[in-house]
């Protein structure tokens, strides 16, 4: 609608002055004249004429009442929906926590049973931090306050089997750093169970472990189990490391003086969550009781 521009002619100006006066006079006449009977008759007629509008307005009112109720219900539903979504999210978190706890419980139960059976002494610790850039070490949540010492052997239990995981290389009162056996800097004396030959294990920097310096005549075979040897003075004797995956005969060169075999570790150190830290070996004492 445009703003009005009043360019009225003289006729229109007069007309616009007269018109309100005419309507005022008519209004006054309606008020003053005794028209009650006529008004009542007209009112009756108008009532009939306006019945459709009355019905329509009643319909509109009912519709608006319904809208009000519907909007109210929608708001209530939206509110309930938000609450339920929050509850679902909370329950999902709880379920996830419960599943995690259940798995942890299973792991710890089997680990506890195994540690009792083997009569090990030491302390259980959780992996608190794993460096994303370096896969060969982890930080555990136990330190000197809990009896963890430098060079303490660290074992882990997976699928009901206990195996060597690494050893402590740094320790603080509350935490300790464990060098895992897949690290290139890790080394330990090891023996092949059935052949009574010894070598030195060290990590290959990935997930594998090599058993080096085996005598050429050792005749190791695939599947032979490899254990720690007490001759290294770092680990107690008899902790399972893994089994021979590749004997090394295949890649042996003519000038080699020893064999290097590949070992499949019994523990997947990349997924270790809890470890058992044994006391560091000292002269005349071992972590494993006889």
């Amino acid at each position: 609608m445009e703003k009005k521009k009043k360019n009225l002619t003289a006729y229109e100006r007069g007309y616009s002055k007269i018109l309100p006066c005419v309507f005022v006079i008519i209004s006054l006449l309606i008020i003053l004249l005794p028209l009650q009977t006529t008004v009542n008759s007209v009112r009756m007629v108008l009532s009939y004429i306006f019945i459709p509008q009355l019905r329509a307005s009643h319909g509109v009112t009912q519709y608006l009442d319904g809208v009000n109720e519907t909007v109210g219900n929608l708001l209530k539903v939206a509110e309930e929906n938000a609450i339920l979504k929050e509850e679902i999210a909370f329950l999902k978190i709880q379920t996830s926590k419960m599943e995690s706890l259940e798995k942890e419980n299973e792991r710890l139960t089997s680990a506890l049973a195994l540690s009792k059976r083997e009569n090990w002494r030491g302390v259980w610790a959780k992996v608190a931090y794993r460096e994303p850039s370096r896969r060969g070490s982890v930080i555990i949540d136990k330190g000197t306050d809990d009896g963890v010492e430098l060079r303490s052997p660290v074992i882990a239990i997976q699928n009901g089997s206990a195996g060597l995981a690494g050893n402590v290389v740094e320790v603080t009162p509350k935490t300790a750093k464990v060098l895992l056996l897949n690290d290139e800097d890790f080394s330990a004396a090891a023996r092949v169970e059935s052949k009574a030959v010894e070598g030195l294990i060290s990590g290959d920097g990935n997930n594998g472990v090599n058993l080096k310096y085996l005598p050429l005549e050792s005749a190791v075979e695939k599947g032979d189990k490899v254990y720690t040897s007490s001759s290294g003075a770092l680990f107690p004797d008899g902790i399972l490391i893994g089994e021979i995956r590749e004997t090394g005969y295949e890649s042996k060169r003519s000038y080699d003086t020893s064999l290097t075999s590949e070992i499949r570790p019994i523990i997947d150190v990349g997924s270790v969550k809890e470890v058992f830290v044994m006391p560091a070996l000292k002269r005349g004492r071992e972590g494993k009781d006889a």
Partner: protein
Amino acid sequence: MLKFLNVFLIFMVATILNWTAIELFAPLDINIGIMLIFSIIMAGVLSEGGGYCFAFMSGLFLDFFSATLFGGYALVFTLIMFIFYRIDDKIDFRDMGPQIVITAALNLLCVVLYGISGVIFTGGFLWQGLKSFIIGSLLTGLFMPFLYVFVTKYLLFKVFKENNENKTLF
């Protein structure tokens, strides 16, 4: 003829909305001036003669359904239109602010003038109550922008929008 039909249609819609407002707000003792809103809107659309006619008919319609002073609303609406046309060229009624303020003020004036006409013609002030006077006027003002958009966008025929400059009676 088309303009007359359009005005008649708008008047019918106004009556429906007026009764709807009565049905909704009467339990709260609040009177919304729907017919006044439509009279003001149509005063902006129609020529001065048409605006007076629409306002007078709107007032008369209210008079037929009020039991107190027959002709009172017709008189008051005519006076309100007279005032509106005096201020119409000084304000831009397309803005929401002036629409709300002017309509609320005119509704207050309407209630007062109707009360005074009651004093003159019936011997008693026709008072609707303070709540209706204040809240009713405020709500009337607030309804104005919505109804203004509703009427100008959806109810007005093209013929009004095209020939706004050359107004005839309708």
